[in-house]
């Protein structure tokens, strides 16, 4: 089909990976994951309203390894989207666009996501045992 010999613009895959673009697409991916996660939130609320049996099945799902894995993924996605969202709001004020700042806030977001996820799971697991 390619009959036009004009040069193509460089495609996405020729670019070297860099923090800025990776965090950018991760923000969208995390938002998408959280949107899927809202299904669990609504399921949980509706099941609680329906009665003890429905609620027990949600609890059983959340307690299974796949439930725990999904919950863990969603906490990572939530904290990442939250922290990077604050970074976006900071950008919206017109500040923080120079390269040094973009990288500093980018790594800060990565670190904050890790720290908050670990704190929440330590707190959650210790609470679960009580």
């Amino acid at each position: 089909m390619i009959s036009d010999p004009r040069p193509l613009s460089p495609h996405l895959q020729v670019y070297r990976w860099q923090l800025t673009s990776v965090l950018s697409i991760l923000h969208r991916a995390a938002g998408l994951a959280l949107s899927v996660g809202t299904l669990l939130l609504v399921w949980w609320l509706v099941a609680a309203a329906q009665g003890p049996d429905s609620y027990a099945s949600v609890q059983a799902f959340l307690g299974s390894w796949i439930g725990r894995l999904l919950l863990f993924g969603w906490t990572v996605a939530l904290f990442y989207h939250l922290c990077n969202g604050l970074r976006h709001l900071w950008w919206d004020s017109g500040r923080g666009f120079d390269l040094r700042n973009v990288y500093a806030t980018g790594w800060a977001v990565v670190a904050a996501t890790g720290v908050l996820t670990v704190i929440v799971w330590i707190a959650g697991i210790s609470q679960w045992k009580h």
Partner: protein
Amino acid sequence: MAQSRMRSPLGRAIGLGSAKEGVGHWWMQRVTAIALVPLAVWFVISIIALAGADRIVFIEWVRHPVPAVLLVLLLVATFYHSALGLQVIIEDYVENESLRLALLVVMRLGSVLLAVLGIYAVLKLSLGA
């Protein structure tokens, strides 16, 4: 005037002015994002406190006005914000116009349905017998 300098040459030539909705999507994404910062933090802390709790404990918690109101606000802000985000994702990646429009409609209606289901459940738990 700053406003006239902001207009594109084409916009000035046509002279119709804006539809006054140009930043509507962007703006509501920010407003809901700002609302979700405290709501999400509150929700995570609440969920940790409720971790492993049975249904009775959970219902006792939802019966209080503050958690019930905050849960409803969380649901409204979450589904508003996610609908705006999903809209952009669909518009960016779905090339086929019929499929794109169909997905946008299904996504919008689905968001409203899930939000109303969640709100109904919270109100039933909070106000019901």
